[in-house]
């Protein structure tokens, strides 16, 4: 309970401190929104120029970027401060976190308020509203619940990938650069039905870098394409569970890396 109280207090104070720098605050919100411009362009082109993609109706395809972006926005808001661990090590900040009776991972997440998440979430919510309004599906309670669970699973899966990179950074600070590549990859391929890509690429984005479980498989299950994804239906449907398991595994990796932390001298 005390942990929640502290997290809430720090988040509130961090948010308030960002509000005091009005221009910086607004710029960060704008950056969050502008960063998603490629997804907005994709959605616009999809709706105005194509009737569908890879056997999917365009309104169904729109659910993929909407799910991906909303999961990403939640990730940025809740668990998205894992970038730059290498820099923290160089600056001795991880040493400082290790001096406090509080998990280091939690302290990393509480280091600042991610103002850009407001931009991310605003665009993502708009896109999801657009996707749902164009959808021909019956959005009953079961479907809505599954969508919400998938959003949380997608958030955890993205967090798992960045936590894994951050764990590597604890040992090899230059591994930080991989997080940029990861972000680029997620942004580039996260909006497409992966069956339009060559099989090898689709396979890599399913079993190598499990991007498919963030939005493609959940959208496929929701829109009735769950049997045409190239993986067993149960696996596609279990996407949220994959997210949870991946996140738990990444936290174990983080803990192991932290136990072997050597700081800048290592």
């Amino acid at each position, binding site marked *: 309970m005390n942990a929640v109280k502290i997290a809430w207090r720090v988040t509130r104070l961090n948010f308030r401190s960002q509000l005091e720098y009005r221009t910086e605050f607004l710029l960060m919100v704008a950056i969050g929104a502008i960063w998603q411009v490629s997804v907005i362009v994709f959605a616009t082109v999809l709706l105005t120029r194509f009737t569908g993609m890879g056997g999917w109706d365009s309104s169904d395809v729109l659910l993929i970027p909407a799910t991906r972006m909303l999961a990403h926005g939640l990730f940025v808001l809740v668990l998205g401060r894992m970038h730059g661990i290498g820099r923290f090590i160089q600056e001795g900040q991880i040493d400082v976190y290790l001096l*406090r009776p509080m998990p280091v991972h939690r302290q990393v997440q509480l280091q600042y308020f991610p103002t850009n998440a407001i931009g991310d979430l605003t665009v993502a919510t708009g896109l999801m509203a657009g996707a749902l309004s164009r959808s021909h599906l019956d959005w009953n309670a079961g479907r809505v619940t599954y969508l919400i669970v998938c959003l949380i699973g997608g958030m955890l899966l993205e967090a798992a990938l960045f936590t894994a990179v951050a764990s590597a950074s604890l040992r090899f600070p230059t591994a930080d650069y991989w997080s940029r590549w990861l972000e680029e990859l997620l942004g580039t391929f996260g909006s497409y039905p992966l069956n339009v890509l060559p099989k090898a690429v689709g396979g890599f984005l399913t079993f190598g870098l499990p991007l498919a479980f963030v939005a493609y498989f959940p959208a496929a299950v929701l829109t009735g394409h769950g049997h045409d994804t190239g993986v067993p239906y149960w696996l596609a449907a279990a996407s949220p569970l994959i997210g949870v398991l991946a996140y738990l595994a990444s936290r174990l990796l983080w803990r192991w890396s932290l136990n072997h932390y050597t700081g800048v*001298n290592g």
Partner: protein
Amino acid sequence: MIGSIEVRSLSRSFHTTVRRPGFTGALRSLVNPERAVKHAVSDISFDVAPGELLALLGPNGAGKSTTIKMLTGILTPTSGEARVAGVVPYEDRERNARNIGAVFGQRTQLWWDLPVRESFAILRDIYEVPMAEHATRLKEFDDILELSSFWDTRVRHLSLGQRVRCDLAAALLHDPPVVFLDEPTIGMDVVVKEQVREFLRHQVEQRGRTVLLTTHDMTEVERLAERVVLVNHGRLVLDGTLDEIRRKYGSTWQVRATLADAHTEVVPPPGIALLRQEGPQVVFGPDGPDAPTVHQALKAVIERYEVTGIAIDEADLEDVMRAAYVHAGPGAKGA
């Protein structure tokens, strides 16, 4: 034991890659890297009693910070054992963190974008300090460190001196029995340094805290520490009180004499060396392990030469430490 530090045969090694010179060497290192083991700390043992202030000294890269990092739970030792207030720091980091306070002069543990008082309040919640106790302690710290004039300022806008004073307060707000200070006054002006020293003295003498201090400032050591542990090349070189160390290494005196006759042939007495001669001005110093004391040397010079003026310079603590670094080789223990 509450407040004590016990260190037994503590060692820490790091694996590094040997850099080969030149472009070809860099390419060879890429294909076939040569690994090396760097022993940052080797087989160090010492104790700090509850309520004692110990200065851990040594040149840059001697292993002081690595030792402190192991005792604060940041690093796990390669071998050996340490207990801080009865807790093995690297095995139970969070429990150890509740027993210790730490200040690293170069970095802050405060929240960069928040006013200092908000950081204090967050730390109060983290360490679960009762509200009234927190207020009393903050007032006590403010009385000595004069924090209230800037504690509503964001940390990023504080001067170095203000920031370190706040860090000191932050490190002690939860009333830890053991405090680690790694170069806490580095870069401070003399006024703030003295304020910090007074605060530390108060914490040791009045509050009975155990303090392990690293510093390159010998004035600080003289003012605060009774006992020092000297490390060099990762090894403990000596462990003793300041008096013991002075007795052993403090014989680096100089006798400056002005001779009545500038053409006098100077053959120094036994145990005394002629360091410099410029006309009638001559400077003598100790020669070898059986050198006389400064007063014996003074007497010997006056008896041997006709002088029109004479002065003595006794070594300060910095000279003593320099002599200790030079004379006590790695592995030597005890003052």
